[in-house]
């Protein structure tokens, strides 16, 4: 594909490629296991030491001040080099943009560098038992404690990704009990080993403790760990939701690398399972489409545009591509498709990645909510009683 890259951009890509291919540890044990979490933190530390952990951040916090183009180039190279999933992902892509935009200088100093080198892993705490797709139904509360200069958190969060092996969390709490829905919410940062916090890991479909419940009973958080304004949490958090759905959570490199592996799998096994030929081709085409769509978005953003509700198009596309691609691979594996671990083809990585992919259409706003958003905010259909898409 013909991208008009500048000399600097090409040099950046080549430097990233060289380092990543020389240093990639390949696949590590699941980051949602005790053993894997340690290995993934070590990988984050070596990335950070070489300056590749957070390329788009300012230099003072460990980044390279890379442009959006360079960031996408880095992500392509990252996955083409077979590098592992990022245990620091939620912090880097969901929380850090908010700290950089809304955080105090002290918060930036305290939290960014340790996030970048994997020494402090962050877990998100959005959902609650009664607030899933309808996130504005948050009930966990924050009460003012003037004497100690902070807030007291109570309630329950659930489906908190990475919480089982993380150090700190971020999430929304209702700080004004009289306010409804999007109003009266405040964004808090807290240590997961604070007094009054209990983390109960939940085994996911893949058998790993990829998320957890977090129970809060009278957990004190100082004012210095309020992110953004008191009562302004919804607006602050929605800038992360945009990131999560849009560009940053799923970079195209991951799907392109998976699609290339799928073509290799077809090379090995395609003769025996000819019926999935079109699905192999379509998975590759869709990954390529996602890659080019991303470049189109980068061009749009660099010209001063923004990604609004269009992020929902993105989220629907990559999450469904991810599932379909891996199901095609499972078809190619024939009767081996149920096998996991030792003795399975590719150590069961197709099965593991398929199970991982299945969460995509659910998290960060289900794809049904995303379709409401596309219909109402992108196409302009009447809202009616279809529920309030956030």
């Amino acid at each position: 594909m013909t991208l008009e890259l500048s000399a600097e951009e090409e040099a950046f890509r080549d430097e990233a490629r060289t380092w990543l291919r020389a240093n990639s540890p390949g696949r590590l044990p699941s980051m949602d296991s005790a053993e894997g979490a340690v290995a993934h933190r070590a990988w984050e530390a070596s990335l950070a030491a070489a300056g590749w952990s957070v390329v788009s951040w300012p230099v003072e916090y460990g980044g390279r001040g890379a442009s959006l183009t360079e960031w996408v180039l880095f992500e392509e190279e990252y996955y083409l080099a077979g590098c592992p999933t990022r245990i620091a992902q939620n912090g880097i892509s969901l929380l850090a943009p908010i700290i950089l935009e809304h955080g105090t200088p002290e918060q930036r100093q305290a939290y960014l560098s340790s996030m970048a080198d994997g020494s402090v892993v962050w877990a998100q705490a959005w959902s609650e038992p009664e607030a899933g797709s309808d996130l504005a139904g948050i009930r966990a509360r924050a009460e003012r404690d003037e004497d100690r200069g902070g807030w007291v958190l109570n309630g329950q969060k659930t489906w908190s990704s990475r919480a089982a092996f993380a150090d700190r969390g971020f999430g929304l709490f209702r700080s004004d009990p009289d306010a409804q829905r999007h109003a009266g919410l405040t964004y808090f940062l807290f240590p997961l080993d604070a007094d009054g916090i209990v983390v109960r890991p939940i085994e996911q479909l893949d058998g790993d403790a990829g998320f957890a419940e977090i129970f809060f009973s009278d957990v004190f958080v100082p004012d210095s760990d309020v992110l953004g304004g008191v009562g302004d949490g919804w607006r602050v958090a929605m800038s992360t939701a945009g990131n999560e759905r849009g560009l940053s959570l799923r970079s195209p490199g991951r799907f392109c690398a998976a699609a290339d592996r799928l073509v290799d799998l077809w090379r090995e096994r395609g003769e025996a399972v000819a019926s999935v030929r079109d699905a192999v081709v379509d998975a590759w085409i869709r990954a390529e489409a996602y890659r080019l769509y991303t470049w189109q978005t980068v061009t749009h953003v660099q010209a001063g545009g923004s990604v609004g509700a269009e992020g929902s198009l993105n989220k629907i596309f990559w999450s469904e591509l991810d599932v379909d691609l891996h199901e095609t691979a499972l078809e190619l594996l024939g009767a081996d498709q149920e096998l996991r671990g030792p003795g399975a083809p590719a150590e069961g990585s197709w099965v593991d990645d398929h199970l991982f992919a299945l969460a995509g259409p659910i998290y960060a706003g289900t794809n049904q909510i995303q379709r409401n958003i596309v219909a109402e905010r992108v196409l302009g259909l009447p809202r009616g009683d279809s529920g309030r898409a956030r």
Partner: protein
Amino acid sequence: MRFGTTEEQRDFAAALHDLLQRVDVPTVARAWASDDTGPGEKLWGSLAELGLPALLVDEEHGGIGAGAVDLVVAFGVLGRHAVPGPWVESAAFAPVLLRGVDGAGDLLSSLSEGRLRVAAAVEELAPRAGDVRGADLALLVRGTEVHRATVGAHYTSVDATRTPADLVPAAALGDAGPEVARAVDHAALATAAQVLGAGQRMLADAVGYVCVRTQFGRPVGEFQAVKHLLADVKVALEFAAPLVHGAALALDAGAADATRAVSAAKVAATDAAWLSARTALQVHGAVGYTLEHDLSLWFTKVRALSSAWGTQDFHRRRVLDALLSAASAR
């Protein structure tokens, strides 16, 4: 890095769009379909004044010497407006093909002036020419040999504005060599852009309709079942579009993977446009299932063009063959 059209290309699209907005294209298309080609020929002349058939002709022969990106910008607009006539053959295929044929300079000049409408068939791709109505010149390609042809038996297309026909070779024009493959790529890509434009138009019209059609006391566009159908169409169209643009860039750059890119674009654009057509038909209800409604113009065109310049199977095979023969897929 930049991946998108230039301001000049967007202005060109806007000029074409403005022209077609002023003409009642559905009426022109219906006339064309009933062999009243006068209004269509007049429209051909207007589009020629804007330079459409001259895009790919070099300046030496009175053309503009533009590239595939300009071509897909233009064909997207033609698709949006359901413009009838052998535009792909005349403005995308023939200009590239005839570049490779010695002594075809006069034909190129006539093409660029809009004085020549071309019917064409490539034997390896299809058993007949897709559209011969209103054509002044018929070209049949066997291998890399280009022949002038006469028109044999006619057929009826599901798209009433198209007239498929057998071509019978009459006189050899010459060997176009590697330009045959490039011409086919340009034609397939222009077709992809055209169906994508048609798909975008059908989505816009479907959205408009569900906002005004009421049942159970509310616009049917309020129902989530309808919303989600239309959202899926939007996703499919949005992600097909960059493949079309990317393939055009690859063709213009003479990239080694250009053919693969064209085929990927044709597959995705056709699938997206057909999803749009089916969905538009569904949400329009019974009125969409009539020839009287203009939806039928776009619907039947997308159906017909889905196999023009290579079937979906042909293009999927080309993508896979290219992937398997490459040392590395990317």
